[in-house]
């Protein structure tokens, strides 16, 4: 085993969420088709990681929103790490911005920060409850249509 690049790229939580979700769907499909058991380390990690990410802001984000906010944030002089944290943590208060942005009071005015928070609010909508309810509604209607045994299994994930 060789490590060719220790850090080729930084990933947003959303990107990781998408990959994990796709793997989960692929596993579910093969489980039904072939009844194979995946090794414990694989299933444990998948379950725990999805559980963590499901509780984080990344669940209601989309790739479109992320590329949009990356564009908008270019107007501000922020480092890659700061942009990444804004996307992952979705700060709502100036205190959170002070944590994420180094030397915040020197680089930004109070008005500048308020502007930034407004931008984040509009580019990454925060009404998680509304959006989640919408998503659940769509999924529920799809699943009720199928009535396949896998519904019983998946209900547990939608907590």
């Amino acid at each position, binding site marked *: *085993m*060789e*490590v*060719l*690049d*220790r*850090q*080729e*790229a*930084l*990933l*947003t*939580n959303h*990107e*990781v969420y998408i*990959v*994990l979700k796709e*793997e989960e769907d*692929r596993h579910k499909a093969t489980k039904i088709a072939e009844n194979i058991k*995946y*090794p414990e*380390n*694989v299933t*444990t*990690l*998948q379950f*725990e*990681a999805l*559980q*963590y990410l499901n509780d*984080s802001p990344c669940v209601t984000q989309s790739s479109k929103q992320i590329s949009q906010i990356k564009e908008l944030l270019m107007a501000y002089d922020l480092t890659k*790490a700061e942009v990444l*944290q804004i996307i*992952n*943590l979705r700060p709502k*208060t100036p*205190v*959170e911005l*002070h*944590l*994420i942005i*180094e030397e915040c009071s020197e680089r930004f005015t109070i008005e500048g920060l308020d502007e930034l928070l407004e931008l984040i609010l509009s580019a990454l909508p925060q009404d998680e409850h509304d959006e989640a309810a919408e998503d659940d509604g769509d999924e529920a209607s799809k699943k009720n249509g199928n009535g396949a045994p896998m519904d019983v299994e998946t209900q547990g994930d939608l907590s």
Partner: protein
Amino acid sequence: MFVLVVLQDTLKIVPSEFRKTRQDALKDEINAKYSNRVLHDIGLCMVVHDLLEIDEGFVQHSEGWIWVKVKFRVIVFRPFADEILVGRIRSASPEGIQVTMGFFDDIQIPADQMPVGSEFNATEGVWVWRFEGNELFLDLDEPIRFRVLDSLFLDVSPPRPKVGGMDSGIPVSHPPPYSLMCSINGDGLGLLSWWE
């Protein structure tokens, strides 16, 4: 908190897996080998991201499976220094508190990185922050925002077998191969409920 790491490895596909597509079989092998495992100085491997290069594969003389050399990218959990993360309080002791993120548990906040004015309440078994006359408890399982200060990779090779052989039967706790040292001393850090 997640990075993409490019690895190269030679993996085997056994005949019972031949029914899968080459890609699926390799992804499953990579996940089985790397998922939820710590690579020294790299981090906690989560799941394979994609395959970059796959060679034709060769069958070793007298073996029945195919060895395939693959270049692939894997998603690794490795927060950078000063990154802000959210987790839950797992346990508390006079030395500090332990935080968990579900898939990763070895997050320590030592006593000297607690907010100024906090102390460990031995009767309740939790830390308390005394701030402006208020007593704010750091209860277990509360969501908490923390800053990563440092990460520590330890070489955990298996211990050499003792001469004379028998296990004492007492479980030995091994130091974690990858742990994070963090802080909640600062505005915005600590329980999420404090800053809402």
